[in-house]
């Protein structure tokens, strides 16, 4: 699948382990410097990917994060096989490689002292695709926020719905949004942070209906893929099309926040919550 081959190629390239090549400006950065800079290019501010647990560590005050609903994992209920083998083999490999059991990690903790429930998607896990287990965790975390009157923050990073679960994956869009709808009714803040990339069925569901939609610089945020659109309209699209900057300009994003500032930005917003 094209949209999650990124991790494997990145691995091959880093064979020397000492250097990281920035995908945007192609400059070579010391790996230690790259990591110290939170996987952000010190040259061009390209925001590289980080794992869900790395993001959780950046976000929460020390020792305050409590993981919830980590007993949920995928199921191959359609017995889906394509040319490359079974869905079951794919997710079992993803579990082994990433050490997490679904494409999202959910839990609660304190952000500069402010309590929040979070769901952090992990692109390494089958391209962050939205399967039944993913949707279940995002809904359960929303329900937890609902029951405990806590703000809910979702970090999305996803290629879209998980095709290997067919129609069941599509229905996760309605399922997760039903959770958001209940938060809306109860006036519980829901903040969506759209990370590179957030596309397809994830952008067309919970990721786009935050009370606030926040993003990182240069993130790809799209409904339809670039190639599909180019085929439809028969012309090349502008370079910045479907970036967070483009969405900010068109009114769909509230703010673009650098990774290093995200924690303080979110806690500052949460400090206004007066309920």
């Amino acid at each position, binding site marked *: *699948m*094209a949209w999650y081959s990124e991790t494997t190629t990145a691995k091959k390239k880093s064979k020397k382990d000492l250097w990281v090549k920035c995908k945007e400006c192609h400059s070579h950065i010391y790996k230690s410097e790259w990591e110290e800079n939170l996987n952000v290019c010190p040259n061009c501010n390209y925001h590289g990917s980080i794992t869900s647990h790395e993001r959780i560590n950046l976000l929460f005050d020390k020792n305050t994060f409590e993981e919830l609903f980590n*007993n*949920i*994992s*995928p*199921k191959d*209920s*359609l017995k*889906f*096989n*394509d*040319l*490359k083998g079974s869905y079951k083999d794919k997710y079992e490999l993803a579990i082994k490689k990433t050490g997490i059991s*679904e494409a999202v990690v959910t839990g609660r903790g304190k952000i500069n002292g402010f309590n929040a429930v979070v769901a952090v998607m992990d692109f390494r896990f089958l391209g962050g695709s939205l*399967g*039944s*287990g993913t*949707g*279940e965790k995002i*809904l359960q975390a929303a329900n937890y926020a609902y029951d405990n009157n806590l703000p809910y923050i979702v970090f999305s990073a996803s290629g879209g*719905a998980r*095709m290997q679960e*067919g*129609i*069941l*994956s*599509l*229905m*996760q*869009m*309605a*399922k997760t*949004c*039903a*959770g*958001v*709808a*209940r938060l809306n*009714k109860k006036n519980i803040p829901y903040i969506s942070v759209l990370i590179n990339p957030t596309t*397809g069925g994830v*952008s*067309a*569901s919970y*990721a*786009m*209906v935050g009370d606030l939609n926040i993003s990182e610089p240069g993130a790809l*945020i*799209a*409904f*339809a*893929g670039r190639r*599909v*659109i180019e085929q*439809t*309209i028969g012309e090349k699209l502008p370079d910045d*099309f479907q970036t967070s900057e483009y969405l900010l300009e*068109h*009114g*769909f994003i509230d703010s673009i926040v650098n990774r290093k500032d995200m924690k303080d930005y979110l806690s500052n917003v949460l400090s206004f919550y007066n309920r």
Partner: protein
Amino acid sequence: MTDKKKTKKPALSAWEIVSISRHPKRPILQNYLSLIVKNFVEFHGDRYYSDDKAMIGGFAEIGGQKVMLIGHNKGKKVNENLERNFGMAKPDGYRKALRLMKLAERFNVPIVTIIDTPGAFPGLEAEERGQAEAIAKNLTEMASIEVPIISVVIGEGGSGGALGIGVGDKILMLSNAIYSVISPEGCASILWRDAKYAPDAANALNLTASDLLRHGVIDEIISEPGEGAHTNYKAIAESAKKSVLKNLEILKKLSIEELIQSRFEKYSGMGKFSVNK
């Protein structure tokens, strides 16, 4: 219909059903409008940008029952399809649909949505005006609309473009309609790396009415006559009408609280996953 063996065991492959669902003569929303709908009062525009002709809606009467009817508007002739964009709505269409659902709520009239689209329109202006946001908003708002919603998949249920008006309390589906997360061609070109594997993908995706009933996604299958709905417009329209009215009666018995709660539970329960102890 008379041959019981045939209705018991569908002999058609998923791919054959895909082609019936896209049959050029398959009845479209406009056919149902003239066959079973009276007093259609169409409303136009999303109040933001335009009037999307790929998505239409308005008050309507079906068998004496007053409803808000909203649906994808495919065409048959070339000029119809150009005007209606082959039933592929833009954000304007989804926003019009939501506006009309809110109107139905204001008037306390149940909503019937008719699904028949290859998908939401994938174009520059659609992205620019927020296709993802428009669909996402509908999914969220439909979860708490305080009137009954019945969705009927009459032809192609194309992914988010279908679901964008498809969060119903009851989802009904014609026996040769399809409903899928991605088109078989799209799935084949990604997972099989070649669109010619579309028949395999169609099979793997579980996109037929009987698949969806088995997985608990839809509530009822409306049987098509003969070789398919295109062989007898009147018969399929009557069956669809009967099924819609029957399900409306069931939903009308629920209080608003019961309705919203059962809708939440319906969608909460969708999907299959493993729970480790």
